[in-house]
């Protein structure tokens, strides 16, 4: 072996980009101070170290206690883009944990983040969208975003963003927000935009847009708007899409939109019954469930009933079908039974 001398110097700094974190419970206070330092480099390094630490929920909790969040909020307005990028990354990681989400709500970070929606740096925006997406996983987070009036901004961004990844992230956020409360989104014209996204080339975008439309049409106003903007023919077209989950979400959106009479007749005109019947044999349970329910809605109209009377045996077969999970089996059987009863209804 080569004879190399021992160096009296300190060991080489493996990661020059990070500050050395102090040991144990001194880590966060020290980082907190460094975050407030005047030196740009120190701040950047501190942020990078913080990124690594934030994966542990205990550190997040500690950070909240010592007021780290306020510093992070201040750093969001920093002029240096790297600082902003790293700050948003830290916040994104924070939002992945429930303690972190709680921190978001406590310190009103949602509003501070919203100022960065128009940030020039795309990485920054990506982290921002990711942070929002993580936040809305819980209903309380979605409520927060709705109450701060960010939905209309997000919808506009959905239209504006070119990057597909960003569109997917925004759609994810919207899907979960629309589940909570769709009124603000409906006021900001979300249905035509989603309609446009339904014909996108990216299958994820199509699938998420259909899911968003599903959540929109739960409310009565949403149903009316969906019929008004002629989205139903496109949804029927999507029922023949090659990708499975796109079909399933389209069936779900149809299921809700056909509750009102307008929707029923629009779907019948677009000849939705055929593709829906095919979907009954799909491997995905949710697709079958949605298709069954959509066919039940259509069977309430006399024209639909006439067509479906020929297909009653399929539903009867579904009634007795077993499934590994009992509650899913039960749900499927119940849906099939209801469908049969609606089809065979005599006034």
């Amino acid at each position, binding site marked *: 072996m080569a004879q190399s001398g*021992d160096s009296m110097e300190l060991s080489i700094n493996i990661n020059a980009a990070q500050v050395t974190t102090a040991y144990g419970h001194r880590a966060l206070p020290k980082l907190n101070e460094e975050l407030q330092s005047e030196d740009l480099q120190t701040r950047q390094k501190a942020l990078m170290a913080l990124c690594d630490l934030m994966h542990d929920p205990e550190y997040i909790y500690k950070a909240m206690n010592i007021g780290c969040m306020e510093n992070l909020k201040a750093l969001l307005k920093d002029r240096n883009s790297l600082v902003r990028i790293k700050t948003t990354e830290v916040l994104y990681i924070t939002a992945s944990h429930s303690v972190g989400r709680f921190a978001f709500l406590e310190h009103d970070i949602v509003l501070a983040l919203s100022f960065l929606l128009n940030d020039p740096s795309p990485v920054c925006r990506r982290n921002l969208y990711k942070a929002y997406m993580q936040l809305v996983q819980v209903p309380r987070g979605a409520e927060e975003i709705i109450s701060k009036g960010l939905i209309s901004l997000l919808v506009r961004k959905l239209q504006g963003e070119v990057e597909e990844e960003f569109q997917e992230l925004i759609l994810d956020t919207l899907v979960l927000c629309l589940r909570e409360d769709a009124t603000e989104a409906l006021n900001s014209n979300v249905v035509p935009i989603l309609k446009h996204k339904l014909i996108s080339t990216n299958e994820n975008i199509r699938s998420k847009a259909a899911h968003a439309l599903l959540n929109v049409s*739960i409310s009565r106003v949403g149903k009316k708007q969906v019929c008004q903007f002629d989205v139903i023919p496109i949804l029927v077209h999507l029922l023949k899409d090659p990708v499975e989950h796109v079909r399933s979400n389209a069936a779900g959106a149809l299921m809700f939109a056909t509750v009102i009479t307008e929707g029923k007749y629009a779907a019948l005109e677009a000849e939705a019954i055929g593709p829906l019947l095919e979907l009954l044999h799909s491997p995905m349970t949710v697709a079958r*469930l949605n298709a*069954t329910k959509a066919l039940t809605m259509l069977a309430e109209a006399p024209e639909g009933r006439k067509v479906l009377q020929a297909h009653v045996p399929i539903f009867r077969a579904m009634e007795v079908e077993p499934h590994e999970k009992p509650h899913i089996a039960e749900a499927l059987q119940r849906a099939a039974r209801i469908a049969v009863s609606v089809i065979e209804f005599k006034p």
Partner: protein
Amino acid sequence: MASALTDSTSRAPSTYTYTSRPRALPCQRRRYRDSLTQPDEEPMHYGNIMYDRRVIRGNTYALQTGPLLFDFDLEVTPVLEVLVGKTIEQSLLEVMEEEELANLRASQREYEELRNSERAEVQRLEEQERRHREEKERRKRQQWEIAHKHNETSRKIAARAFAQRYLADLLPSVFGSLRDSGYFYDPIERDIEIGFLPWLMNEVEKTMEYSMVGRTVLDMLIREVVENRLYMYEHQRDSHPSPEPEDEPGGPEAMRESLEASEFLEQSMSQTQRLLLDRDDLQRTTYDESSSQERKFMEESELSGQDEETARRESLGKEELP
């Protein structure tokens, strides 16, 4: 590990126990750069065991020079085990956490799907209910309207029939009452009534008046003649006084007789007057004066005989005067 330590510290005077303070190893590095020509010295003091020749490591092909310190391979195994084991355990934990999260997400999604389908069912039933209710309302309203119209029509018909019946009687009764009040008159008849008959009556009256007047005049003439005769007769008796006392009783008798005769005349006159009065009420006013005078005469004659003459004379005088 322990053996290496003990080896290194065996050079030091004190023994190493757990209570002893950590001590930096005596510096064994060369402070100054060696000249390349310097031959190897023994023993070499290395700070790093990796470079120590006396430690046997892995697949080293170095010659074993001198006594061995320790077998690296043997000693490193527990260390490695701990290190690697801990790392793997930690990573397993993290992976399991991720898996758990993924499972949670999946079950959440499943629940959401089921919930969505239930929601759709609820909405469908709601919609059905609403439609039924609306239909019912519409039918009820329709029925009510029909009943209302029916009612109204029947009331209208009844009112119409009643009015017709009522008014059917009206026309003849109107005409009848008008006719009764004399609004429909025959113009000729009316003309005769208005024009001719009053004139006729007037003429008849006049004619009767004429005859009445004639009779009255005749009566007056007769009376005057009779009075004159009486007066003359009484004057004749006065010019013959012998028969006066006899005439006096005769006179009063004659007076009585003449009184009776005049009374008769008066009575007849009064009778004729009464007859006239009875016949023509209308002419009462014209005769009133004369009849009242006659009545006065009659009353006076009934009351006192003597006064009569003077009264008569007075009346004659009165009559002569006009």
